[in-house]
């Protein structure tokens, strides 16, 4: 909170100028309706402005991933891979996926808090491409995911992560993760519209994200798990994404895992996109 700027209740307001107001009202030619892309980008710009004004919200996307990678590397590294520096080669791409997938839930929270305020009603009365508001949230969030990825990669490199795929492999991995997270976030736009309070959005998010990220191949290879669990882990979209990102960063180009990840992304948008828009129009 910027408590330093007081409200200006006491201050005298400049008067409303009736003449310039009249001139403003007369002289307008209504511009053409903005394109879908332009409206979405404008909403994306809004999300970035919000980050600029409330930079504290970036704490979650930076501190949390750092904590995760430090904890898991040093806690499990010795036991699982002989040493932390061995383990981080396997773990880092997975932790990257886990952290970014976890912070996608803030999309639902920001949708939900906006609904409480009148500004949502104003957006809904604008003659624009309807999904633009939602796409705008996701574009702003994509910036957060990028920031989180950069932070995590830097910390990983400092801790000894040496990806064989080099810069192209790492960039390809991050790009795939961003595409998947963008698609995954449509689940949260839906819940953001569906649920009444911010708390319930958080609660539901954790219920979905915890099993999805832990019951995957992010921490260990699935071979030692019981058969029924392997069946889940091997078909979990997060496993596909983590394997694909790991493969890309290691320098092999795991075509089938990349296709699986993209397929899941397409499916998520195809299912949750229309549901979100239906809820948005009905709200």
């Amino acid at each position, binding site marked *: 909170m910027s408590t330093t*700027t007081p409200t200006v209740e006491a201050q005298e307001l400049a008067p409303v100028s*009736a003449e310039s107001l009249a001139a403003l009202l007369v002289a307008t030619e209504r511009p053409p309706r903005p394109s879908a892309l332009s409206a979405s980008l404008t909403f994306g710009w809004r999300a970035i402005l919000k980050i600029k004004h409330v930079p504290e919200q970036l704490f979650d996307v930076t501190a949390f991933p750092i904590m995760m990678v430090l904890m898991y590397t040093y806690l499990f590294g010795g036991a699982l891979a002989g040493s932390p520096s061995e383990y981080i080669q396997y773990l880092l791409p997975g932790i990257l996926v886990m952290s970014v997938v976890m912070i996608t839930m803030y999309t639902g929270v920001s949708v939900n808090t906006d609904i409480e305020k009148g500004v949502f009603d104003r957006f809904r009365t604008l003659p624009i491409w309807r999904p633009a508001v939602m796409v705008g949230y996701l574009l702003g969030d994509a910036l957060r995911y990028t920031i989180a990825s950069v932070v995590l990669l830097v910390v990983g490199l400092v801790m000894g992560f040496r990806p064989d795929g080099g810069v192209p492999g790492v960039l390809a991995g991050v790009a795939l993760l961003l595409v998947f997270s963008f698609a995954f976030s449509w689940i949260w736009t839906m819940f953001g519209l569906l649920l009444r309070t911010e708390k319930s959005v958080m609660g539901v998010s954790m219920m979905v994200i915890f099993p999805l990220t832990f019951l995957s191949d992010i921490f260990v290879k699935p071979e030692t798990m019981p058969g029924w669990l392997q069946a889940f882990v091997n078909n979990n979209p997060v496993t596909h994404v983590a394997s694909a990102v790991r493969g890309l960063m290691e320098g092999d180009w795991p075509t089938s895992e990349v296709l699986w990840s993209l397929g899941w992304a397409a499916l998520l948008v195809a299912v949750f996109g229309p549901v979100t828009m239906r809820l948005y129009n009905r709200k």
Partner: protein
Amino acid sequence: MSTSTIAIETAGLVKVFGDTRAVDGVDLTVPAGTVYGVLGPNGAGKTTTVKMLATLLRPDAGEAHVFGHDVTREADAVRSRVSLTGQYASVDEDLTGHENLVLLARLTGHGRRPAAARADQLLSAFGLLEAAGRQVKNYSGGMRRRIDIAASILNTPDLLFLDEPTTGLDPRSRNQVWEIVRAVVAQGTTVLLTTQYLDEADQLAARIAVIDRGRVIAEGTKGELKSSVGAGSVHVRLRDAHRRPEAERLLSTALDAHVQLEPDPVALTARVSDSDRGAAEQASRALAELAAAGITVDNFSLGQPSLDEVFLALTDRTPEEATA
């Protein structure tokens, strides 16, 4: 400009939330180019009606047309001609005033530079230039209303919905909002104004609909509506409590109305009926009678019919009872 002279036309509009019929068969005809007041207590269905007309809610039954466009089937056509300022600030509180206006200008199709120019012009016309770079959450109530209305007229809408625009404002800010509304209407925009205050509707609106429990219970010009309620009330405070019975008799004869004895032992209230003689003239004649009889009047006021009185007259309930 619109060629049709009817801005809004609804027939049997209904919205049900669970068990409550928030809007229960509303028929409205709003002529273009005027301020139309929708008056009613909290929970009467004013906001729900506005939301349906502004395409935010789908009606459960009935029809509504805005400039001839159906609000459900031709929602986009309606959206391109209307603007809504809700009860709560419909701007983004985290952004500055300038950013909010640029955002909305961009969303209505202005290019980057024209959007910024338009935002500056509006901020200057609304006396908000100094606050332009501050986050809206640090604005006072009056400033919020201004930025909110500024956002609504970015593109000079043909129809502007103002949902309780002065609720919670101090009298000064309230007057300024009224001035803005007058300026907007003078340029040909139709305004649908909801309010809980009769004097606000009286100041601004050409026609008024009184709405209660989701229904329109009275509709007409200000004059028509007032004559159904009476022209106002005379409140009198005497110096001596023991002269009150005598004063009651005199007032009752002079005004030809029932005189109410207040809990305060020296106070009386009489409703002034609407007649050829103005309320003030009737009241002054009544006061002259009291003076002639040697009754000292310490204090006197002539009040407009309040919403309570309109309500009592129309429904035999006060607004408090209506919302209970």
